[in-house]
């Protein structure tokens, strides 16, 4: 039952990385990223990677580590701000970026995992995003027609995801907005590796409340030393205790 569990992130990636592979990585900004697996990916030294994810880390954090180590050839993302090295290499032509609308990217990954080779979306019609893509009209419920763009499914050689808890079967539960792209990315990898904060025994997670069934997780590792860097700490002052007394 525990054959999916690896002792650490490096061993979870051992023997399956290769130059030129496509890697998907979960997270929105630095929220819900597989911190340990990203470090292991950097240490693997695999080069010419195509990296798919909503972002590519930000300065000194997350997938930036792999970028700074010159391992990335191409990126599919919806937003790549706050990342100076990526900016330089994109402007110089060293790295190719395919910008995808966030919802289109999420849906393309879901489609890839769900055996849907292509679908249509209104998103991006009439914009640069639609250039070179098939467009066509479909009827609305009221009979009027709207234009749509065909988008294709995405899969990866390796998917890296971060969850909150797993059982030893690889059933995953995410926490709050750290869920984001992780559930779809888990379905779209030929090999999916999950890192989690806690591994429990089967039966300890409510079967009614599994976010990612274990069928999608081939390898599982308990992460360590989570940084969980926050890009923008925004708070409000606490009302003075006993204020108006």
């Amino acid at each position, binding site marked *: 039952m525990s054959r999916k569990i690896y002792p650490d992130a490096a061993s979870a990636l051992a023997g399956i990385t290769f130059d030129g592979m496509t890697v998907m990585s979960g997270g929105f900004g630095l929220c819900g990223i597989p911190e340990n697996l990203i470090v292991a990916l950097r240490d693997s030294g695999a080069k010419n990677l195509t990296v798919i994810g909503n972002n590519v880390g930000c300065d000194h954090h997350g997938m930036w580590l792999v970028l700074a180590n010159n391992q990335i050839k191409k990126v599919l993302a919806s937003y790549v701000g706050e990342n100076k090295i990526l900016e330089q290499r994109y402007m110089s032509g060293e790295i190719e970026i395919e910008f995808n609308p*966030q919802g289109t990217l999420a849906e393309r990954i879901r489609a890839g995992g769900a055996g849907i080779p292509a679908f249509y979306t209104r998103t991006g019609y009439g914009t640069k995003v639609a250039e070179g893509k098939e467009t066509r009209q479909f009827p609305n419920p009221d009979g009027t027609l709207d234009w749509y763009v065909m988008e294709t499914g995405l899969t990866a050689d390796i998917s890296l995801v971060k969850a909150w808890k797993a059982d030893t079967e690889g059933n995953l539960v995410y926490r709050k907005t750290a869920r984001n792209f992780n559930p*779809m990315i888990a379905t779209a990898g030929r090999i999916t590796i999950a890192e989690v904060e806690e591994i429990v025994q089967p039966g300890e997670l409510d079967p009614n409340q599994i976010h990612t069934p274990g069928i999608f997780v081939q390898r599982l590792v308990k992460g360590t030393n989570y940084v969980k860097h926050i890009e*923008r700490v925004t*708070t409000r002052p606490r009302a003075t205790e006993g204020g108006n007394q």
Partner: protein
Amino acid sequence: MAWTRDEMAARAAKELRDGYYVNLGIGIPTLVANMIPDGMTVTLQSENGMLGMGPFPYEGEQDADLINAGKQTITELPQTSYFSSADSFGMIRGGHIQLSILGGMQVSEKGDLANWMVPGKMIKGMGGAMDLVAGVPRVVVVMDHREKGGDSKFKKACSLPLTGKGVVDLLITDLAVFEIDRRGGGAVLTEMAPGVTLDELRQATEADFRVALQG
């Protein structure tokens, strides 16, 4: 006298309706969250996977696993639900969010919106903006009326790359409010900031518009 950022947000807040599910963009639209009228229930969506966005946390209580689409730390409410990005944009693209209020670089009289890239500058990406304007049935753009150099940002046709074609229903600038027909029926001026004259507005505006000032 031009409207302030707060006044523009307050005008945008008048678009809220009781029971609405709403997505607010970064910048002035974010201010709208603080202007929901008392007694009105409005649920805020954050496209990274949350319905029922609460205020910023108290100092020291921020949670790295709980951020909004602007990557700011936030809090949850009793009615909050979390979901994946695919489910979030299914909600958006499927027309379930009633209202999106977002910023813009340029809007055209046909309702085209440009707000994601300037040729020659570093492109950061469109994030969820293209999905929001394509999927949400009512889109309100809040932006300055003119560039810092004085050029009109409300144009006959956008010169910047588009975020969406025929997607804007209402434009709120620091000078005026325009209703726009997505299907090409043109723009209508409905409100002006106090002290702004129609002549001044026409001077400041490249777009054609009809005039039907309210009240």
